[in-house]
């Protein structure tokens, strides 16, 4: 056996060990994914099928169920250190995404004008007139029903120097909304900083208008 053939054998051995590691890594990932899939509902798959009806076609299924997995399996087996790094990164260095969405468009702040205040009301009157009736009894027997917590927050924030008012507002900048009403807290100096919208008058889009 010559020196070059020995060197070649060592190189082949290293390549074989590398590929074996890749094979083990791929198999482990596959097993973990299979276990996860068993514990999942069919929700995502059904949803994807509803979104893309052609996912049920034989050609698409062959492509999606056989070609893509085999291709990815081979790719990961060849470049398993990269895949391993991403797995470790996802497991131990994951950054939390904020749960509040950032609006895609800037929304103009809604400010109530004092001219939109109709009349001063008492807490007792508001609570008496805002029980929500439902024939299926799917709403709590509290003022403002499921939104009672919002009302309680507004009610409890009213200071001795502040008054509670009914408001009605017509705005053209909210598409589909013709009018809205609710309750606002007016401070001693006449400013309105807190309010709760409780009703809307809705307009359907005209023909050729999209929502």
């Amino acid at each position, binding site marked *: 056996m010559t020196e070059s053939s020995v060197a070649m054998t060592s190189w082949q051995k290293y390549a074989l060990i590398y590929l074996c590691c890749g094979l083990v890594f791929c198999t482990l990932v596959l097993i973990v994914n299979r276990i996860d899939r068993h514990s999942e509902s069919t929700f995502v798959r059904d949803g994807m099928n509803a*979104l893309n009806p052609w996912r049920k076609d034989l050609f698409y299924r062959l492509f999606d169920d056989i070609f893509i997995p085999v291709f990815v399996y081979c790719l990961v087996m060849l470049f398993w250190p990269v895949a391993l790094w991403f797995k470790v990164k996802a497991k131990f260095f994951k950054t939390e995404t904020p749960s509040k969405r950032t609006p895609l468009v800037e929304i103009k702040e809604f400010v109530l004008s004092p001219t939109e205040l109709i009349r001063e009301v008492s807490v007792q009157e508001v609570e008496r007139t805002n029980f929500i009736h439902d024939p299926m009894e799917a709403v709590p027997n509290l003022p403002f029903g*499921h939104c009672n*917590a919002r009302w309680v927050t507004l009610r409890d924030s009213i200071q001795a120097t502040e008054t509670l008012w009914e408001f009605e507002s017509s705005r053209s900048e909210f598409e*589909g909304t013709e009018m809205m009403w609710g309750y606002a807290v007016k401070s001693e100096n006449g400013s309105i900083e807190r309010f709760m919208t409780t009703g*809307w008058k809705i307009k359907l889009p005209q*023909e050729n208008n999209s929502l």
Partner: protein
Amino acid sequence: MTAQFTEILHYQGQQFSMRTEPLFEYLYLMPTFPEFREKSTACWRRYVGKWEILLDRLYLVGINATYKDGREVTLDSLFPGFPDRVFAHWYSGVLNIPQGKMTKYVHMGYLSQYEQNLFMAVENGVVVDTQMRINSDDGE
């Protein structure tokens, strides 16, 4: 942005997709926005609500979501004391319900086009008006 799962609506004995998300307004106004686990890039809002229109009223009758700690989200956990049905009186707006065959798939949000769109105006959870729009072949 991937095409998004729609909400599910039961209306007049049939199941429809609904492109409006009436639950978001309720969740957004909660003291703390509930933390749901990510589902898929086809569901950025992380939940799918199941709705029903009965007696001209909009009801939430189910939700498919998981809290970040792994617990399943139920109606009772969002609306204590109401495990089966919740009257959506907080919602006012226009429900957009695509109907018929999909005429054009768009891999973005709710932009795929269908033969018709049913619009329902809802005021404080009560359906006050409906309109059917027939879309032309190009979806306009």
